[in-house]
C-alpha cells in the first residue's frame, strides 16, 4: 500500500500539472471521446501507435481530480509500451478498482487509486479516460 501523503501528492500533481493534457491536431493520431452520462467528465484521448508500439498519448477535456489524474497517469504508463503490454497494465488497473488482487508493480503511480473502490460513486471518474485509452489500443490492435 502506498503512503497516503504520497498518494495525495501524486493525485494533486497530475491534476494541477498534467503531463499529457493537450489537444492533438495531427492526422496520424486516432482519437476517442468518452463522456459520463451521470457527471460532467468529458474526455477525448489522442493516440499514436506504430508497429504495435504506443508512441504518444495525449488527452483533453473537462474532468474532476480523479478523472484528470487517472487519465494523465495512464497516458504516462502506456507511452512507449507494446499494445499488449499496455492492455495488461489497464487490466491490472481494472482489477484494482474492482477490489481484486492486482500487480502493484505494473501500476506505478496509478497505485494512488488503490482505495478508489471504496467510493462506488467515483469509480466511474477513475475509469472514463482509461476506457478511452483502452478503446484506442483495441482500435490499433485490430
Amino acid at each position, binding site marked *: 500500500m502506498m503512503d497516503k501523503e504520497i498518494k495525495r501528492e501524486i493525485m494533486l500533481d497530475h491534476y494541477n500539472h498534467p503531463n499529457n493534457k493537450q489537444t492533438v491536431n495531427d492526422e496520424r493520431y486516432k482519437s476517442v471521446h468518452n463522456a459520463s452520462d451521470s457527471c*460532467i467528465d468529458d474526455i477525448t484521448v489522442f493516440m499514436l501507435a506504430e508497429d504495435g508500439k504506443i508512441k504518444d498519448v495525449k488527452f483533453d477535456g473537462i*474532468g474532476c481530480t480523479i478523472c484528470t489524474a487517472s487519465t494523465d497517469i495512464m497516458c504516462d504508463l502506456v507511452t512507449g509500451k507494446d499494445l499488449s503490454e499496455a492492455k495488461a497494465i489497464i487490466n491490472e488497473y481494472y482489477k484494482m478498482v474492482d477490489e481484486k488482487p492486482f500487480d502493484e508493480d505494473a501500476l506505478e503511480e496509478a497505485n494512488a487509486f488503490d482505495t478508489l473502490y471504496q467510493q462506488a460513486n*467515483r469509480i466511474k471518474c477513475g475509469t472514463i479516460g482509461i476506457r478511452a485509452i483502452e478503446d484506442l489500443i483495441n482500435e490499433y490492435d485490430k
Partner: protein
Amino acid sequence: MFDVEKIRKDFPMIMNHPDLIYFDSAATSFKPRSVIDTVIDYYEHNNCNIHRGDYDISFAVSKRYDDTRKTIARFINAKRPEEIVYTYGATSSLNIVAINFAKKFLNKGDVILTSEVEHASDVLPWFKAAEQSGAIIKYVPFPKSGRFDLEAYEKCFENENVKIVALPHVSNVLGFIYPMKQIAAIAHKHGAYIAVDGAQAVPHIKMDVQDLDIDFLSFSSHKMLGPAGIGVLYGRYELLEQMDPVFYGGGSNARFYPDCSIILKNTPEKFEAGTPDIEGVLGLGKAIEYLEELGMDNVEEYGKQLAGYFISKLEKLDNVTVYNHGAEAGIVTFNVNGIFAQDAAGYFNKQGIAVRTGNHCAKMLDQIIGVNETIRASMYIYNTKDEIDRFVDVIKETTLEKCVDSIL
C-alpha cells in the same frame, strides 16, 4: 409557520439517518410515514385491480383512486377532476403534450418557444415534436442573472408564428420562480398555448391553474412527498378532448370492433390504458393531504427562507461563488472556487451531506451562467437552518487536498 422538528419525525428516512444532511430533494423528496403506510396498506389490505372487479375491495379502491383526482384538482385548483390525467411522471406528461401537439396543432414553420436553461424532459420532447411536424424551436433569451426576462420573451413573438410556449414554472437549476401568470397572458395574447413543467413548482408553491390561466401542467409525485412512478398531466378540458392517447389498450376503451374501430372512454380515462400505478395514486393523494395540512403558503415561505438563509451565509464566505442570488424555491446553486463540483461533492458525501452536481439535466445552461458544472443543494420542508449551518461549516473548510483525501 409549521413545526419543522415535528415534521422531521414524520419521515422515516430522517429518523433512520439522523446524521445525514439530505439536500437533494429537487431530485426526489423523502416520503412521510403516512404516504408509506398508504402504499403498504394497499398491498397488505387492499390489493386488487381497479374498475374491473365485481367485489367489495376493488369497488372501494376504485372509488379512492377516482376520488384522488378530486384531491389533485383541488390542490392545483383545476376546474374539474376530469382535467387530471394520471401518468408515470412529469416526463411522461410532457411527452403526451408534445406528441399531440406535433400531430394535431403544429404545422411546418410554426414556432415552439422554450428556453435553453431547462431540464431535458422539458426540451427533448419538443425537439421531437419539431422534427415530426416541421415546426421550429426557438429559445427565450435569458440574461446572465438567470432571471426570466418578460420583455425579451415578448419580443420572441414578433413576426413569428408561435404556437406553443413550453417553460417550467420553477427552474430546476437556479430555483427561480418564473412570472407564469404574465408568461401565460402574453402567450395567449399572441394566440399561443402554454405548457408548463411544474416538476419543481408544484412541490414548492401554491398552484392555481385557473388563476395562472395555463393550458397544461406536468408534475411528478415523487418530488412532492409521494411515491415514484406516478405523475399528473393537467390539461384544459377542451384541449384534452381534442388530444389522442399515446398508449392504447385495456382500461381506456369502451368498445372495439373487428373493423379496427375503437370507441375510447371519456377524458381523462382515454389516456390511461393498462393497469395504472394504483398504490402510487393513493400515495400521491396522501402526500397532497400532508402538504395541504402544512399549507402551501407556508411551504413556499419556508423554501424561500431556507434558500435565503443559505445564500446569505454562503455570500459571507470568500471561497464560494453563488449562481442564484435571491432564489426562491429551496434551491441553492454554487461552486467552491477552484474545486471541480464533483470533487467537492465527494468530500461532502464523506461528511454525510448529499447534494447533486453536474448540469442537472440542463445541458445548455453553461451558456447562461458561464460554468458547466455546479453544486445544487435543494431543500424541502424537513430541512433545517441547523443543517445549513453544519453544511456551511464544511464548505468553509473545503480544500482540494481534503477532496482528494476523501478517496484515499
